[in-house]
């Protein structure tokens, strides 16, 4: 599903060139869930932005569902995102002037899917927020907002879901709810999940864990939990 070949990212700062990512190569299979863990500033989010086509690599190649992301322009990448990718962010990133229901409808509408409203209502029901359909984001709690964001991410039944610290802004109880929901929908839809987190407990729930450190990615031995699931 995702293949990266020696991707790097270098930015220009006032003090010269700064390499944020060392050459990184790895693969993510269809339906697999991976967690990218690491300390703040290690380059996790940068890697996510490159994988999701939100930013461009300095060198190297990325293939997303066989599409050469590294050679697509912004418009083509947007189209690809619209068709195949879902997102969940730490700060929810809901459009403040749209209601919960309308936020969920947004990707479906952008993609030009029919019956966006019906789909949104169904999935809002799935996340247990049918009664909050017409509330604006600032009228919802953090946990509720993230559940809306999850619903929005899944409405288009994306092939890949990128989640950036999905529970980072939530308390424990809400974190558990959101995690459970995320993995349930992931299983139901069969989505490939790429999750960036520094929450090791959350990371352990994924099939694989990749560790970012100083811009380099490494994959420790797989956990027994994950191995057994893979075998099963």
């Amino acid at each position, binding site marked *: 599903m995702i293949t990266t070949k020696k991707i790097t990212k270098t930015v220009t700062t006032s003090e010269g060139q700064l390499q944020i990512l060392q050459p990184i190569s790895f693969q993510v299979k269809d339906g697999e869930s991976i967690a990218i863990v690491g300390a703040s500033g290690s380059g996790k989010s940068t890697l996510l932005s490159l994988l999701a086509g*939100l930013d461009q690599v300095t060198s190297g190649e990325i293939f997303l569902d066989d599409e050469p992301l590294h050679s697509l322009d912004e418009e083509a990448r*947007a189209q690809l995102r619209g068709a195949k990718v879902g997102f969940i962010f730490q700060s929810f990133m809901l459009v403040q002037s749209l209601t919960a229901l309308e936020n969920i409808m947004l*990707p479906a509408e952008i993609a030009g899917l029919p019956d966006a409203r019906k789909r949104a209502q169904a999935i809002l029901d799935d996340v247990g927020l049918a009664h909050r359909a017409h509330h604006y984001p600032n009228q919802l709690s953090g946990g509720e907002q993230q559940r809306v964001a999850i619903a929005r991410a899944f409405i288009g039944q994306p092939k890949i879901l990128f989640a950036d610290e999905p529970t980072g802004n939530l308390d424990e109880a809400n974190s558990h709810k959101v995690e459970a929901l995320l993995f349930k929908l992931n299983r139901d839809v069969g989505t490939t999940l790429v999750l960036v987190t520094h929450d090791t407990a959350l990371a352990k729930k994924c099939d694989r864990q990749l560790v970012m450190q100083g811009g380099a990615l490494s994959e420790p031995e797989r956990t027994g939990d994950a191995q057994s699931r893979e075998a099963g």
Partner: protein
Amino acid sequence: MSTVFSLAWRLFRHEARRGELTIILLAIVLSVGAVLSLSLFSERLQGALQERSASFLAADTQLRSRDPADAAWLEKAAEFDLTTAKRVSTRSMAFGEQKMSLVDLRAVNDAYPLKGQVTIADAPFGTESVTDTLPQPGEAWLDSRLFQTLNVALGDQVYIGDASLTIAGVVSEIPDAGFSLFSTEPIVLMRLEDLPATNVAGPGSRVNYVHYFAGEEAQLAAYYDWLRPQLNDEVHRWRAVSDDDSPIGRSVARAERYFLLASLLAIILAAVSIAVAAQRYSQRHFDPVAIMKTLGASGPMIRKIYVLQILFITLLGIALGLIIGVVIQQVVVWALADKVDVTLSVWHWRPVIIAVFTGAICAFLFSLYPLLRLFSVPPLRVLRRDIDSTVSSRTLQFGASGSAVFLLMWAYSQDLTISAILFASGVVLVAGLLVMTYGLILLGRKLGSGSMGPWQLAWARIRRRAMDNSVQLISFSVTIMLLLVVLVMRNDMVAQWRAQLPEGTPNYFLINITQEQKPALSSHFEENNVEVDEFYPVVRGRFVAVNGERVNTEVTKEEENAPREGREGLGREANLTWSNTLQSENRIAAGQWHGDSMLALPDGTFAVSVEADVADRLDIELGDSLTFNIGSEVVTTEVTSFREVNWQTMQPNFFFVIDPAAMEAFKPTYITSFYLDTERKAELTGLLQPFSSVTLFDVDARINQLREIVEQVSLAVEFILILVLAAGSLVLIAQVQASMDERQEELAILRTLGARGKVIRASVVLEFVIIGVVAGFMAALANELSLYLLQTQVFQMEGSWHFAYWLIAPLAGAVVVGLLGAVGCWRLLSLNTTALLRRMV
């Protein structure tokens, strides 16, 4: 497209409901409302004033000629739906039973006057009243003075040429009597039908034909376009209200310019507020755009969504603005109803078109740059909130907004000068402000160092914001400057108008006073508690040659502007005076006043001072030799100075003032003026009884009319000032509110960190006070520049300095902006910290 439309509509609807669009909407409503109410009102007022001016022409336009107009021309006028009237006038002798007098004979047809009214009196110098009748055939109405000169009474006969007419009335005022102190022949008004019988207008006599036209402006213009090719410049003269060069005409023209200026400034104010609001709007949509892009929205889709939203806001803003504009101007008209007659029934579409055009152009052109910034927000912003738009070009921003403002001004005013002046001072202001802003940053580093108190916080914010957002500071200054321009311009203009006619302005002139009568007249008036002004000696002389070259002299006064072959002359007898003292309201423009020093001139040549405009018209240079025939004598003079004369004052003014030494041999008559309260009018007969040869010239009615017009125009100007002030204040509020949003985040953080409300409030108020002072100061500077240019180049007034405003503007800026800042801050701080933080998300 339907998805895009419904998405745009949904966003628009929700944002409107949540109050997100209030400021930009308000800005558009304001611009449309202000422009509409101002233009509607000034259109009405201009109409009313034009109507008023038309009454001084007795029509909308006059065609004057020495020959009767072609009958086909008048038939054509009827085709253009114009009404016409006719007057034939000449100077002629009128005879009573014992005495005679030269009179200004005016024979009119029954349609006269098309505009304005004839005023009659119940007896010579008696109570006046307006009439809509005219003398009947066989009758004549006489000027009050003629009853005295001809020694006749109502009901007597007056003989003009071969005809005898019954004196049926006393005419005291006719609309197009003209105002010249020296064309003093009293008027005799009679019917055109009786003119042939007099035989005074036969071949060889000097007769003027005046055809009057009235009708719709467009029709008049179309008719003139048709007529113009057939007119002969040497014979015909077309006079429209706008050609009126009288003090009234000039006041009206100046008022019209002021309305234009005020409307232009309203447009700029609107533009500034829209620019501020659009910038805020764009800033607030960076996140939604990044989200939509992340979710796969294409560039064209985002562009359509936001252009559609701007379209919705603009349409709503224009609709609301139109309603409010109409309401405001109705309120103003209603409030003014008993003071200024502006109740025109004709509805004007031009203001509506201008207002809609202004709203649309402002909304689109001023949101262009913010929108471009918005469109370029990268999707990566969803992960990295610090990432801003990739478009950032001050040149583009200022270039786009600048050309938009200039185009709007030019399109609206169709006057390059006034637009260029305002625009140039705007550019200077902006450039100056940028320099000032950087100066502030340097100064702020020194002033704002030390531990964090309100003062330091305020400076820290200004330092940051001065770099980030100089637009805000500039918009404050532009607003204050525009308000200053409108205010000061109004003050100067009204002051100059009123100064023309101060209380006690002489309302009667006495002419033909002999040397012997002078002392007696002085003491007689003094005994009756009437103060007589200075006596000016006058002799009538013919101006015949310049440097020995003869000039044309055989032209009547009314044709003096017509081009002729040969050297231009004055065209009539000149009233020559002499003095060594420069008259008040006169100023030496070039050369040296002969009274100031002994000038070495050849024997038999005397110094003459010539009025500057007439010198220009007659092509007279300093040092030229001018020859006058006075009686049988020839007087040769040398031009030693040019004088600028304020013709707007009601005092005798002279084209030529000669060295007294040249005039010793002549026996002059004297002219003087005096003020008599209207209530004491009845005393006039008694006052003049002992001096039957002295002629009285009554300008009381005219002065009252002038004063009334000045009052009306001043009042209207005042209302327009209030409208512009209100618009400006609202713009300031919008600006403070917009900038308060930007401070919200910082306030929330400070609050969270435990800063006391008092400290935060004090720092915000201080920040606004400092901004207000700087903006006020810059505004005073730019104001001075624009006023100087406007007054000298557009309003034909004398430029003046306004030092007081250098103090008032920064002070007012500090108070108003500081106060608005305090109110805005109070609103924000009344929210609790959680609410503030939540609003930041």
